[in-house]
């Protein structure tokens, strides 16, 4: 017989203040007005693969169910197509809330190891940070190396095809004034962001 699951949620399962925190980001306050109509899920092309639909994620966020939300697949399946944001009758910035949740999940390290999407995001961040520009094929390579080497090898045909068509640069692109960009990022790191933005932005990622 299959394992029985108990799914009741007690107040102790909530992380009080989580919803408020997410909603304090400019643009996300509208989540308070959500009437759970389901339009977001109805238009989302990826909702059919999600464990919690976008509507459910909104309710879970608002009700402080942080663990459930940050562990969901939903936030990683979001392709930022903005259909939900545009269709929402209460003009809730659902896509921006999804970004918020992605950031928090990365910040807290809450996602499966070798899960490609957060790894891609972090590699992208690193490359953009240090080089100033992103060279797609190298980025893809780094991501695959860190998550799924076998899959990378499976992409050899695509790689060859791109190379033959001149779409596979052999050199990592970068800007001239890299140091200038680095200094700008350092300024952001050192700023008392909480004081300035009333706690809206999160501290920078020490990924380099």
């Amino acid at each position, binding site marked *: 017989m299959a394992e029985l699951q108990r799914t009741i949620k007690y107040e102790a399962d909530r992380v009080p203040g989580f919803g408020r925190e997410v909603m304090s980001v400019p643009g996300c306050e509208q989540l308070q007005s959500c009437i759970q109509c389901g339009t977001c899920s109805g238009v989302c092309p*990826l909702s059919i693969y999600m464990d919690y639909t976008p509507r459910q994620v909104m309710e879970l966020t608002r009700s402080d169910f942080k663990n459930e939300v940050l562990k969901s697949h939903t936030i990683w399946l979001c392709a930022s197509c903005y*259909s939900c*944001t545009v269709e929402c009758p209460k003009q809730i910035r659902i896509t921006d809330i999804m970004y918020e949740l992605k950031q928090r999940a990365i910040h807290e390290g809450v996602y499966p190891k070798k899960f490609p*999407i957060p790894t891609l995001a972090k590699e*992208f961040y690193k490359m953009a940070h240090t080089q100033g520009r992103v060279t797609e094929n190298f980025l893809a390579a780094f991501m695959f190396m860190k998550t799924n080497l076998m899959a990378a090898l499976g992409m050899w045909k695509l790689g060859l*095809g791109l190379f033959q068509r*001149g779409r596979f640069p052999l050199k990592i692109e970068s800007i001239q004034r890299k140091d200038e*960009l680095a200094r700008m990022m350092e300024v952001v790191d050192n700023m008392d962001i909480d004081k300035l*933005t009333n706690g809206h932005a999160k501290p920078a990622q020490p990924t380099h």
Partner: protein
Amino acid sequence: MAVTYSYYPGCSLKGTGRAYEESLLPVMRALDIELVELDDWNCCGATAYMAVDELKACVMASRNLALAEKAGHREVVAPCSACYLVLNKTKHYIHESPSVHQVVNTALKQGNLAYSGNTPVRHPLDILVHTVGLDAVKKRVTTPLKGLKVAPYYGCQIVRPYSTFDDQYNPTTMDRLLEAIGCTVVPFPLKTRCCGGSLTGTLPEPGLLCSQIILKEALKRGADCIATVCPLCQFNLDGYHDKIAAKWGASRIPTVFFTQLMGLAFGLGERELGLHRGFIPLQLPATLRAAAA
């Protein structure tokens, strides 16, 4: 006399999306528009950066806008959909939050730059249809692409969430532009349905399904090719045909940039427009091939 715009190519247009730049610049030149590439532009951050740290993403994007202000041209043209979205989003974010604006300008000072928050960022479609005008485009057409059936695919990020120049669900600027160069635009309900974005590489099952849906419907509607505005959309719709065929059966149809079609109509050469860079080659209808010969 040529009109100049600041030109922000973005990382893709120098890599996998080369053909977009290769076709955009001569087409604009033919219409008396000079696109001046921003000096030392940096990556806009696209969707990935926003997933890590949105404040730094803002600064990344703002550096480009500050460079544009310094260059002194009135407006910035950003052909890549993600860049277009991120630059506009940053502009909105800065307008809404004075404290973010303060952080951004403090950081930008490191490069003796500042961003006022006012430079408009526009898409080439917007400029071609609304500023240049379809009449001027029609005048430059030497070989109307008669008989070529095109499915217009806009993707998500140029119409959502900021719909400055077209309807968010049923846009028509590209439709009208394609008709102006002689194409037959097929009715296509999936104009703005997401192609899967970066998920095609990271989570192939859902990502590629999104692309496959678009390819299959375009074929069903009788299109000869799909015209797109975004380098990632072009990559997704054009680059994964083997994988798609393995999962769901083949849906082979070429996907090109709308600027490549415009270039053809203006009499420019296929190689010059980067048409050889696609995986599925564009087949012009027999009548057009005869005319070109």
